[in-house]
């Protein structure tokens, strides 16, 4: 039968797990783009891709040390922000959404192309860049347990490093969005012509926003690459961006901590649903017989989709948000 204690501890682990970190970093970046500047970037996974691959390639192909690779990956995210921004930032919101998805897909296609095998490893992917990260692991016991939730030492190390990155990003955002700089971003989100009429160089601010959020996305990619220790191109597909949006909207766009809380809850919820379904459909005497355990992964995606729809319709301001201050225009 269904073992709720296992389900709960698993979900609890997801609350702080590697996925929560990954999507929190992606969503933090999206929050800068969308929550504060109103840029509908649907290619965030592309930023993560250049971050992760930038680091992997720099370390394995160019012989960078790990920290150099990390910086290089972040620089790649920043460069993508500039490159993508120059042609696209004059576009309408919906065009921008499509163009950014297209750009991220182009990146994925190029990465997985057999013609790029020498650089990116093609469909086989890239490994062997994370040795320095593994070696730096300060945790020496094989397993640690907190509040009944167990962590393997590699995972614990990744999680600690990841949450440190998240905390730094949150701190930076907290400082910057309450400054006059952040005020200009919000003004652009509300009405960019008004900002122009007040002498603000809207284009420059949008590029800065794209770069800042892009670097956070790149950090997400770097973190993912380090935590799973191998890069495969097809991981970096458009739905990942959509999940980051789920996390962002769930936690509340336009609030500093929104995306972080959103990512944590989103993955805890997903893991709970997933575990529940697996337990209900698996075993010798499944509770739900007509669903195959193999379909659970797919069902989870169906749930995510429905969840996103319901969230957008009934609580576009997020679970903690206040409808009046909501940044998404759902009127």
């Amino acid at each position, binding site marked *: 039968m269904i073992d709720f204690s296992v389900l709960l501890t698993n979900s609890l682990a997801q609350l702080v797990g590697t996925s929560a970190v*990954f999507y929190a970093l992606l969503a933090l970046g999206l929050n800068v783009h969308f929550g504060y500047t109103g840029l509908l970037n649907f290619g965030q996974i592309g930023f993560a891709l250049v971050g992760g691959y930038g680091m992997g390639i720099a370390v394995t192909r160019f012989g960078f040390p790990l920290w150099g690779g990390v910086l290089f990956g972040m620089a790649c995210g920043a460069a993508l922000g500039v490159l993508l921004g120059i042609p696209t930032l004059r576009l309408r919101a919906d065009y921008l959404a499509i163009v950014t998805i297209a750009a991220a897909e182009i990146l994925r296609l190029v990465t997985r192309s057999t*013609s790029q095998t020498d650089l990116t490893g093609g469909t086989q992917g890239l490994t062997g860049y994370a040795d320095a990260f593994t070696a730096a692991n300060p945790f020496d016991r094989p397993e640690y347990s907190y509040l009944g939730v167990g962590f393997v030492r590699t995972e614990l190390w990744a999680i600690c490093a990841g949450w440190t990155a998240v905390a730094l990003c949150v701190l930076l955002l907290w400082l910057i969005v309450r400054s006059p700089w952040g005020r200009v971003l919000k003004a652009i989100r509300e009405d960019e012509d008004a900002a122009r009429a007040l002498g603000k160089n809207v284009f420059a601010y949008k590029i800065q926003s794209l770069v800042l959020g892009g670097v956070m996305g790149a950090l997400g990619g770097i973190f993912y690459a380090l935590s799973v220790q191998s890069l495969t191109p097809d991981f970096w597909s458009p739905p990942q961006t959509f999940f980051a949006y789920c996390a962002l909207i769930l936690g509340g766009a336009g609030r500093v901590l929104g995306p972080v809380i959103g990512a944590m809850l989103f993955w805890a919820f997903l893991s709970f649903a997933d575990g529940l379904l697996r337990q209900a459909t698996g075993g010798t005497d499944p509770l739900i017989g007509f669903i195959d355990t193999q379909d659970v992964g797919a069902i989870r995606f169906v749930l995510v989709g429905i969840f996103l729809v319901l969230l957008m319709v009934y609580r576009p301001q997020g679970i903690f948000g206040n409808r009046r201050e909501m940044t998404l225009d759902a009127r």
Partner: protein
Amino acid sequence: MRPPGRGRPGDPGPPRRPVRLLLTILIPAAALLGLAAPALAGAVVPAVTQETIPVDGTLRNADGTFLSGVTVEALDSGGRQVDQTRTDAQGRWELAVPAAGTYTFRIDPESLPPGTELLQGEVTRDIAEDRLSVVIFRFGEEGEGLDTSTASQVLRLLVDGIRFGLVIAITAVGLSLIFGTTGLTNFSHGEIVTIGAVLAWTVNVTLGVQLIWATLIAIVLGAGFGALNELGLWRPLRRRRVGLIAQLVVSIGLGIALRYAVLIFFGGRSEPFVDYTSQIARSYGPIALTDKDLTTIIVSIAVMIGIALLLQRTRIGKAMRAVADNRDLAASSGIDVDRVVLFVWMLGGGLATLGGVLFALSELSSTVYWEMGFRLLLLMFAGVILGGLGTAYGALLGCLIVGVVVQLSTLVLPVDLKYMGGLAVLIVILVFRPQGLLGSRARIG
């Protein structure tokens, strides 16, 4: 459509043009299953540990017929046989290898039906744990009688491009009209295409109805599905005054839900239609076309003309243009906007279904798979935006450009990058004309 699996070293790589040289059908689903789902699962929940890793494929002869009863075996790196099987009536085979690693897959030539010419009967692959693997063997005569001069190659690609562009246009008309009349940027339109094609497949394969009739039935069902979308979701959302950006996000959620629902019910494989699987090309002067390619082109052109007449001549068509032009004005001049929008959704659903079937026939070797519409979605957007969102004729022009660019790009790009061309064109054109090719600028102040 999708890049074939990697061949063994020294293999010239995937054939550039699959017009005549025939291969077994690619089953992209495997690679796709390897995409988001398990990769993501890997990040969230440890992958379910499996004893063995499945590897599969389908054998299809040069004329498109399935090769049944053929022996396929898997050898490990030491040359020891680890598994062996025979293909079923649909040419399908599945083997299991014990662990990740490099394996060689081989067809026993003895077991082939007499007269079958095997081009590549041995494939070496790296098999990884977290994904399904597909192995392709090639049959038939390679490049026989094909004129390979650049000019004729360009011409062939041009024809392919126009065909592909027309298919994109058929699927995208609905996308453009829906945007024009309601302002919705519908990211779930690709799923309407997939579901349409899956409906046609179901009627064709499961119920045994000939594909033409099956398609007609599916078009009706697809129109109904479009109506369901409008009545069940979008109309209530408009009533609630949900903003356009929020609607866009809703459509993304709907798209994800529908896509994976198709995966659950249809499965992750590419499933062929019963009819029109043959790929024999006929020569028409300098170009060679298979019958289904020719039919695709003719049907598409006829449908496009029909749509043009509908928009220009009929009452409902004029009403559609009026609503697209100015919704409030149309409403105040007595047009029932809701009815027009409902009609647009039904038209869009029906056309997406037709487009899905044509897409499957002409580009996917007559197979249907769960992510086909989503793969097409970005190209649809590219075409529609090139033409200026919301303009019907612009959409046609834009889609043709995208189709041609995608095909012609294979002249300079590796085949697995061919979709990139269409997407790149989108970005480039928008840089110079942010309002699309035929669209007009919005006013300021």
